[in-house]
Every structure is written in structure tokens, then in C-alpha cells.
């Protein structure tokens, strides 16, 4: 069976650096950090990390109330990103209801804010009568994807990939498969996430968060750096429109990139410890799926969240597969770790930068940590380079690895 080719023709981003992929890359090019001290987080006993990268929610009332009522914060971000992706693709919105367009938006959980509110409402008196009918729809694991589908009147395949920090890359990989198998012609794929002390708290209890920069938030997270001390949570949504290549060419669509290969695998080893062998296997399989040798990659957009162990394992895995020839950077120093949204936002930013001939540096990487050396870090200023093939890594708690390979025309 001949597989169809799949391209990205639309990109939508709502990130801590603003709405739109243009705002995202402007923020990165200005070297801006969206990380800030989070007011009110000091009220949470035991929450050591007090920094986060919030995104601004605005214009949400443009979404009709009948649709908006079932949306928590992450779904509002997701709908805006999906609308922007469709507009960027120049696609007639009526295509959404053709049965040929599907939607996969992943997230770590349902709306963290709504889940917290639901328990706060219900538990003090064990009283369910105070709960809004909408709480269920806010808290569902597939809240973002089903809200995007309902709001945009999508009647193709709709599903949610829930794999924490790899959720968006799972969505993109699954959407890629659905189109290349001929089951759908278009897929809106990506992830969404929202910032809440309970989200940062879940990493904090595992000692995975940044805690030393609570008064100097712009200095953290520090991927691959000697002085890194953990991740900083962010929020937003990144959604890309994937399209059958032949269809995109026929309608003369602008092609951001072609998806060449994808792989995801488990370490089968440990729920929280990063696994270099699994990362290596995943990158190799994704390259194999793409029909490429490691030397043909032009840029690696790393997962690198600035945890001590994760960055070390990823740097070692990249070194084992690619040596020190391929430029590598992480974008989390600008906007924190947007978790389930991260892969889509970071891929959108990488592609937008590459279109300008730029590879963005790892913000806050001042001194490469000894265990993260031996790979070619992009540091300091953006690097001018005619780069076409990008490898996007995502690794998640639960031993999940995911890697996507794309080529810009």
C-alpha cells in the first residue's frame, strides 16, 4: 500500500509569548522570558516552586456562549489556536464539516483549574447539588479536542492523546498516520495545557521543578546549563493543520513543512526516570521512518526541560545518534514547559525560525553542564543556517518517548 504524503499547511499558537506564531517567534528573537513570579502560590503548603509562564487569555468572548460554557481555560486556548491554524492554512471553514477533517488535541489532564474548582465546590459538604452541569465537560481528559470539534463543527475523526509532555507529539504522529493511511484528508493536531499550582505541584513533589530562581524568574528554566534546577510550567495551545500533500498542492497552499517520519515508544523501565536507550531507539526509528540518516538532520529541537536527569539523558542520546554535528536547542527557557502543548508550540516556532533562516538558541544556557556536552548547542544569538530537516523530541513521565521528523520545502 502506498502511503500518502502529509504536510503542515497551517499553524496556530497561543503561548506565554502571545497569541500567534509571529508573536511567539518575535518573543524568542527578542530573547524575552515569559516566566514570572506567580502571585498567590505562596498559600500552597509545600509548593517550593513559585514561578510559571502564564499565557494571556483574551477575546475568548468571541466564542459563542453555547460553545464556550463547556470550555475550561485550556479549551479556550485550543479553540483559538485551531481557528488560527485554519485561517493560516487558508482553508474554507466548511471543510471542517466535510467528514474529511479530524482533530486530535492532547493534554495532561482536563482543565486543572476546573478540576480543582469541582473538588473545592463538592468536597467541603460532600454536596453535589452545587456543581455546574459544565464541570464534567471542563474536566474530561478529551475536553480540549471535543471542544475544538464542537466549536468548529468538525465531524471527522476526533480523539485525544493523553501522554503528559508528549501529548502534542502523539497527536501529530497519530494525525500523520490517519492522513497517510487515507482515512482523513486534514487533521488539526496539537496540544493544550493550563497553568495552576496543582500542575506545578505535581512536578514539585517529585523534585522536578525549579526552586532556586523564585526571585529571578527570567533566569529559569536553564536547559542543558550547569546551574539548571528543574522545569517551569507554562500554558497555552499549539495546533497544526496537517493536510494530504496532493490536496495541498492542488489548492496551491503554502506548505510549512512535510512530515517525514514519526515514532513513539515506551522505556518499559521506570515511570519517572528518563531512559537514554529508549530515547536513542525512538530517534533512530523516527529517522528510519523518514528514510534519513542522522547526518541529514539540520536541527534538533530538544525536549530539554532543565531537569537534572532528563537533560543529561537527552544530551547523551542525541550524542549517541547524531554525534556533535547537528545544532541542538531547547525553547523552554523562553516560555517554560507548556507540557501537553509543548511539542506543537516548539515545532511551530522552529519552523517559523527556519523559514527565516534562523535556529533559535537555548535561552539561559550560559555554561553547558559537563554531562550535557558533546552535542552542538545553539547558544547566545540565533544561528543563521539554511536548515530544512528538523527533528522534534518529546519525552514524558511514564517512560514515553516521541520523535517527529519534518522537512521544510
Amino acid at each position: 500500500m502506498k502511503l500518502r504524503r502529509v504536510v503542515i499547511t497551517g499553524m496556530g499558537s497561543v503561548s506565554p509569548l502571545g497569541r500567534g506564531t509571529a508573536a511567539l517567534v518575535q518573543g524568542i528573537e527578542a530573547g524575552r522570558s515569559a516566566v514570572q513570579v506567580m502571585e498567590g502560590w505562596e498559600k500552597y503548603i509545600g509548593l517550593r516552586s513559585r514561578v510559571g509562564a502564564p499565557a494571556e487569555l483574551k477575546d475568548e468572548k468571541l466564542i459563542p456562549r453555547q460553545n464556550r460554557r463547556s470550555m475550561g481555560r485550556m479549551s479556550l486556548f485550543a479553540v483559538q489556536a485551531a481557528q488560527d491554524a485554519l485561517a493560516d492554512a487558508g482553508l474554507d471553514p466548511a471543510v471542517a464539516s466535510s467528514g474529511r477533517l479530524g482533530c486530535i488535541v492532547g493534554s495532561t489532564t482536563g482543565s486543572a483549574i476546573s478540576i480543582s474548582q469541582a473538588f473545592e465546590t463538592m468536597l467541603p459538604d460532600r454536596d453535589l447539588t452545587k456543581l455546574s452541569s459544565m464541570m464534567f465537560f471542563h474536566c474530561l481528559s478529551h475536553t480540549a479536542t471535543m471542544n475544538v470539534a464542537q466549536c468548529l463543527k468538525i465531524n471527522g475523526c476526533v480523539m485525544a492523546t493523553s501522554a503528559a509532555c508528549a501529548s502534542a507529539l502523539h497527536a501529530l504522529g497519530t494525525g500523520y498516520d490517519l492522513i497517510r493511511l487515507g482515512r482523513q484528508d486534514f487533521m488539526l493536531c496539537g496540544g493544550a495545557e493550563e497553568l495552576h499550582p496543582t500542575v506545578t505541584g505535581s512536578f514539585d513533589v517529585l523534585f522536578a521543578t525549579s526552586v532556586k530562581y523564585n526571585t529571578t524568574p527570567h533566569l529559569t528554566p536553564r536547559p542543558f546549563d550547569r546551574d539548571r534546577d528543574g522545569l517551569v510550567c507554562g500554558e497555552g495551545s499549539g495546533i497544526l493543520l496537517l493536510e494530504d500533500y496532493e490536496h495541498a498542492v492542488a489548492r496551491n497552499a503554502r506548505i510549512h513543512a512535510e512530515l517525514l517520519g514519526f515514532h513513539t515508544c515506551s522505556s518499559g523501565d521506570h515511570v519517572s526516570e528518563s531512559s537514554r536507550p529508549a530515547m536513542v531507539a525512538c530517534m533512530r526509528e523516527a529517522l528510519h521512518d523518514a528514510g534519513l540518516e542522522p547526518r541529514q538532520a539540520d536541527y534538533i529541537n530538544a525536549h530539554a526541560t532543565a531537569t537534572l536527569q532528563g537533560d543529561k539523558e537527552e544530551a547523551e542520546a542525541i550524542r549517541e545518534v547524531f554525534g556533535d554535528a547537528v545544532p541542538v536547542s531547547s525553547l523552554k527557557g523562553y516560555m517554560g514547559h507548556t507540557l501537553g502543548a509543548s511539542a506543537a508550540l516548539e515545532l511551530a516556532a522552529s519552523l517559523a525560525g527556519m523559514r527565516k533562516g534562523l535556529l533559535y538558541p537555548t535561552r539561559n544556557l550560559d555554561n553547558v553542564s559537563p554531562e550535557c556536552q558533546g552535542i552542538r548547542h545553539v547558544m547566545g544569538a540565533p544561528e543563521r543556517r539554511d536548515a530544512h530537516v528538523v527533528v522534534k523530541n518529546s519525552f514524558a513521565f511514564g517512560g514515553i518517548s516521541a520523535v517527529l521528523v519534518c522537512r521544510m520545502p
Partner: protein
Amino acid sequence: MTKDEIVALTNRVFEESFEIPAEKLTPQARIFDELGLDSLDIVDLIVALQKQFKIQIREDERVRTIRTLEDVYMFILTLKQESEQARPAGS
């Protein structure tokens, strides 16, 4: 509680919870057809009215007969009067 107070507080629920402009909130306005509420909104209307008026109406069968805003006002008024009458004299 007077009917005017009930009307004002009920209308506030419709404005705040369902984003319906005040000028549309006439007593004759039909909740489903004219104000655009659906079955899910009714669940939230009940939750909001219970909170606003400190009453319990979730299990009250009379809710099913409500069609217009006036029906809501009168239902609340009736409940409030029943509650007054049930209260022991002098309390």
C-alpha cells in the same frame, strides 16, 4: 422577600450566568425559544437559583412546568411563601 426583589435577583442570574442582555428579560420571555437556554443550561439555572435564593429546587417537580421568566419569578415567590409559612410563629 418581595416579588420585585425576586425579579431583580433572578434577572441578575440570567445576565451573569447566561450573558443575556437586560432588555431581553421581560416576564413573557420564553426561556428556551427566546432566551436560548437548553437542557444543560437549566441544570445550571437551578444551581444558580438555589445559591441566589438559598432554596432547594433540584428535586421539585414544579420546575418541569416552567416556560417563561414569569414562571420562574412565581415559582421562587411560591417557594419563599411556603418557606415563610412553614417557619414557626415568632421565629
